């Protein structure tokens, strides 16, 4: 784990992140009254949420609670119907998705959205390229290219070195989830949204995932959506419970675990 942590710290380009962070104040992520309507249906309603820089937050809730819609609004996949979204003090509410990424926001997807016909190396290279200045370059990368080197470091950090030249479509599901995390760590991430990263993983792969998430540099905060309470509560220091598109409860993992209403609603009662 220590090795992974070292690699991630190096790869995450800490100096760049600090440089970006130095212009911001207050919360890392701040949502004020965010609502998303699909016709008459409110997928999320009046969500207000603040996450401090470096904070690790779990967002929990049953299916349909609005967790992924919340992520989609933050990343710009959907524009919210109302409300504001700020990242490190900057109002991103109407920014296109790629502009939010360039400001240090990253996400992983619940269903892997990887490039199946490309190798692992190409996928990570693209992720590093997306936040670099060489996106339109018509020069092919040299062996000494900083982006190529960074891509290789990231691959190492998520334990995919052996699969570096493997087509993504040939990876196991667990490896694809690891690759998702590598893509989220490319460039200089300041805040990451993990959408069910442990879904479908074996117990060993889950342990590896917990090690990777725990090994992230302190300055990188994140929100994790996770149905596996064991994983979520091990990697999060605070928890937001959602229900029917609204924030239902907030607190520490212990408070949430011991809350009678949460147990009734989320665990179906009968849990101690």
């Amino acid at each position, binding site marked *: 784990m220590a090795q992974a942590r070292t690699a991630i710290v190096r790869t995450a380009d800490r100096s760049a992140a600090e440089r970006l962070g130095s212009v911001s104040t207050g919360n890392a992520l701040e949502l004020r009254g965010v609502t998303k309507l699909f016709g008459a249906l409110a997928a999320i309603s009046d969500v207000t949420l603040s996450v401090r820089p470096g904070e690790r937050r779990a967002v929990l809730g049953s299916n349909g609670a609005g967790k992924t819609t919340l992520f989609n609004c933050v*990343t*710009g*996949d959907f524009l919210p119907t109302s409300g504001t979204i700020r990242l490190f003090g900057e109002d991103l509410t109407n920014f*296109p*998705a*790629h502009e939010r*990424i*360039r400001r240090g926001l*990253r*996400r992983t*997807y619940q269903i892997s*959205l*990887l*490039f*199946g*016909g*490309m*190798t692992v*190396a*190409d996928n990570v*290279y*693209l*992720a590093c*390229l*997306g*936040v670099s200045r*060489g*996106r*339109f*370059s*018509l*020069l*092919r*990368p*040299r*062996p000494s*290219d900083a*982006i*190529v080197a960074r891509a290789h470091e990231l691959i190492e950090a998520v334990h995919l070195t052996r699969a570096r*030249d493997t*087509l993504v479509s040939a990876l196991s599901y667990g490896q694809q989830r690891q690759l998702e995390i590598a*893509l989220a760590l*490319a*460039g200089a991430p300041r805040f990451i949204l993990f959408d069910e990263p442990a879904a479908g993983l074996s117990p060993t792969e889950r342990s590896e995932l917990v090690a990777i998430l725990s090994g992230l540099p302190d300055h990188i905060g994140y929100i994790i959506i996770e149905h596996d309470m064991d994983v979520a509560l091990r990697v999060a220091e605070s928890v937001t419970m959602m229900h029917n598109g609204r924030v239902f409860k907030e607190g520490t993992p212990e408070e949430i675990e011991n809350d009678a209403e949460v147990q009734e609603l989320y665990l179906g009662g009968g849990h101690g």
Partner: protein
Amino acid sequence: MADVLPTVAPRKSLLALERIPAPVWVLGLLLLAMPAFASNFVLFQIFGWSFILGMIALSLMVLAGYGGMVSLIQMTVAALAGYVVAILGTSGVTQISLGWPWWLYIPLAILIAAVFGTLVGALAVRTEGIYTIMITLAIAAAFFYFTRQNYGIFNGYTGFNNVIPPAWFGVDWRQAVPFYYMTLACAVLSYLAVLWMSRTPFGLALQGVRDNPRRMAALGFSVTAHRIVAYTFASVIAAVGGILLVWQNAQVTPGTAGIPQVIDILVIAVVGGLKRPIGPFIGALIYAILSVFASDILHAIGMSGERFKLVVGLGFLAVVGFSPDGVLGLWDKYQARREANRDPLLGGGR
């Protein structure tokens, strides 16, 4: 998809001679030696035309194969470049043509066509699928009617005649052999440029945009900007093809970019195959052969030679009927079958 996607890991030069397979050497030598055994008609009318149409179809391949955007504007971009050459350079219409030197009007023709292609791209990339086709077709049709009705700049229905290439090095480049080599050189350069582009960061990102635009946006790429730049790149290739086409015909008229010609470029690209940059040249060669010899075939079976488009259409249906990926798809199927029949122990065929 895997066969068109490059591995971005650093690689040797595209021109590393040891990496060029033997069949490519043979093809290259054959093309270079072609004037030794082919007639002037074959050199000028079959191969010269194939290279030109192949380049214009190649520009469509860049957009459709690498970018996932089917555009019908490529022939129009090519024709615009041809018009600029005729207007700024010399032609038989002396009251309009400005007679500027070639080193001025050729770069300007490419530049103006590229700007036009980029602007069309900026409109078209905001749509997908059938809507992209409709928008580009509508602009192509508008260009056709505009040039036909505008006499002040485009000389209306008659267009420009006697548009010939400059006499570089004292050579008449409209003679069959020089023209063949000129078009061959341009086609090879265009092909290599596209091959090179496909392995650059821009090319890889373009293919990522084709496969998963949502994910690309989530990686920090502006999907719209990448698509528009692809139009610019493709337009440059189409413009060079357009200039050569005008020189070959010695004229440019609204019919150069008429609706049938616009559609023909799509037919050529689809028949050859959109997966790799060689596809459009294969499609163009098939199209040129069918177009040139179809009337002879029809005469032989007692039909009117004017119905040569029927033969072209049947050829198109035959190819896409057997292989939606065109001739390249047939070749891939053949290779896959050969691979499947290979003896796993001995390596030979079973």
